[in-house]
């Protein structure tokens, strides 16, 4: 019973779940609209990564409904029309003391988004965000859904070692 509680009950209890504000389908956008990751998750002119797109980006296409889904209608009514920014929960948010350069990994090392984030781009809906009740970190830090790795320092170090890339404290902890 203790083993069951520790292996099943505890991981469930330690994380609190909350839904994303919008039922977003990466799959629909990739397949029907033909968008690529970088169309929305863009790099700025200075090379820095803009992360999750702001409402302006979405409003460019969804000022009016493009389809007939309830999710899109809800998104336009709740956010686009009143110009209210959706409060997305970031699955991959790192602690404040970590500096991570998307540019170095994507543009220089040529890595794909899936390498770290898993098959998010093929998902039909956004899974609930799971936040550790004690540390406040995303549960994906321990294990990214659909992969066999996490986003902890040990995961970064393992990958750098396997690729024979440089690794020093100041690379990430500026």
């Amino acid at each position, binding site marked *: *019973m*203790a*083993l069951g*509680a*520790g*292996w099943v009950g*505890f*991981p469930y209890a*330690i994380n609190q779940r909350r839904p994303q504000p919008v039922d977003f389908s990466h799959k629909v956008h990739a397949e029907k609209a033909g968008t690529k990751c970088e169309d929305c998750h863009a790099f*700025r002119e*200075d090379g*820095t990564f*803009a*992360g999750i797109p702001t409402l302006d980006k979405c409003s460019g296409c969804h000022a009016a409904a493009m389809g007939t889904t309830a999710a899109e209608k809800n998104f336009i009514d709740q956010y686009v029309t009143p110009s209210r920014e959706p409060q997305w929960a970031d699955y991959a948010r790192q*602690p*404040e*003391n970590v500096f991570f350069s998307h540019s170095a990994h994507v543009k220089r090392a040529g890595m794909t988004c899936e390498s770290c984030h898993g098959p998010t781009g093929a998902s039909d809906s956004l899974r609930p965000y799971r936040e*550790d009740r*004690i*540390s*406040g*970190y995303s549960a994906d830090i321990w294990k990214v859904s659909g992969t066999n790795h996490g986003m902890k320092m040990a995961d970064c170090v393992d990958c750098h070692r396997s690729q024979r890339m440089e690794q020093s404290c100041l690379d990430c902890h500026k």
Partner: protein
Amino acid sequence: MKTTRREILLFAGGSAVGVLMTPAPWRLITDSALWSENWPGIPRPARGAITAKYTNCALCGAGCAVRARCVAEQPVSLAGVAGHPLSHGALCAYGLAGHHLPYHPARVTGGPVEEAAAAVAAAMDRLGENEHVAVLDLRPGRTASWTYRRAMAAVKNGVYVAADGAAAGLAATNAAIDLWKARTVLSLGVPLLEGWGTPGNVMAARAGFHLIQAEAVESRTAAMADQWLRIKAGSEEALGQGILQALGGQTPVAAAEATGIAEQQFLALASELKQNGPALVVGGARSQSAAQLNEALGALGHTIVARREAPVPDGWKKAAPVVDLASVEDGSIRVLLIDESAPGAYLPWSAVEPKLVRDNPLVVTLGWTREGYGRHAQYLLPTGVYPEVADDIPPAVDSVAAAFRMAVPLVQAPEGVVKPEEWIAKAAGLEMADTLRERADAIHKAGRGTLFTYADGKSVATKDVKIGDFWKALEAGGCWMDQAGPAQRPAAVKAAAGATRQSASLADDLPLVAVLTEAPSSPLLSKIYQESNLKLGPKQVAIHPDEARAAGVEDGARALLETLAGRIGVEVRVDASVPRGAVLVASRAAVLDVCGAGVGAKVVRA
């Protein structure tokens, strides 16, 4: 079924062992560690777009141009601006960490603002015929300084007192030093290469002059000078007088003995200054020798020139005159308002206090820390600090032309802080508008000089810029520079008053001579300094081992530093690099109240 105690204990033990074989305890340990890294008191830098903003550093009188890298509008790193005509891309260690200042642990953010205003109003009402209301401005020459002058002109018996700057022994506020024209520079203990003037300008001009540093200790300036004259501590004035004698063809016997420099060396120095001109002598603000040497060497009008002030609106010119503290009658100030929000020259309290009336004077200081005059004032009103507030920075001592540039706010000031010029103007009943904008408009109206914009590194003639664009450029950190006129002798050159008030005492009861360490400490580096003893702390002194033995103190001992002005508790550091006969003290307000450069002092066991 009956459950026995043995079964309960077995169940509990088995559960405990079982739990250890699950992720639960280990995850709890990790999570607790992570939580402790992220507890609510830890500041969280904002995330967002990365932008560059430009401003001018207000941490000292240099006003170096600054490029701030901002993330989501929050400055996260500062750097110099390459190609800037005044600061030449340089930014000192203090300036590089300037954006940390708002978070300084000694910051004061609350104070009795209304109570102080009422007290000032009441004190002004009962002002006697021969009593004054005075503003002491630690950084004169700003637009705020003009507000103070106008405010003091608007009240009964108002006096505007400007703290004198350290400029070649000259008290003239319109004097500037042209290092680019000098071929030989004699520095009488001035930290010329350690943040004096505009550091970038000094270093850029450095290759063009031969630097002779006269100093008792091997400072960084002494180490980098072409020649270091190792004189006895506190003998800078004697050295200057000896060189004057040598220039007049006399043999400086007494000066040689006082300084430890050979007579022949005086003659060689005089010859070099005379023949390898234009020459310049840089001393402290109270150095009479520097003033006399510059006069004798013909530096006035060549390497020391008159500088026009940036234009001001005509309506401002009905203002109180600028006076220095020494010219204020003792016991005459009933209400003293001190603006120490912008770092500037600190006048020791022992010089300020005699100017106050004997019975119940009112002192209000406006500053961001309690470490300055706040220790002596009845009211300390909190002010914003760089880079929270908009303020202009007067041209530095080595800027030969007038300049107008502003420290542009990069972060928001906390609630409850006051703007000193607004508070003092209100106390004086002076109506105020946007004075910086008014000043900028007056400069634009005059049509002189050029506007330098940092983002594109371009200079444009002022007359070719529209008035709205001129202000926008200044708000974006731009800099207006006056056109340099023909080199002229400064109008009000005189040796600063009080030059010998605290000259070195060689009396037996004060056997040591104080030597100040001048370099400011960066808020970023202060913790490292404190922990590593790389720099003297606020209440530390350093003496030679022989002097420590004579005083009966050991390294790290508590002691008293005594001077004619008073005494202060200090911690002693024993350092063989400090010359015999000298005591090295940190240039901090608490120490400066009793101990200035070159004064006689002694260290006694506490």
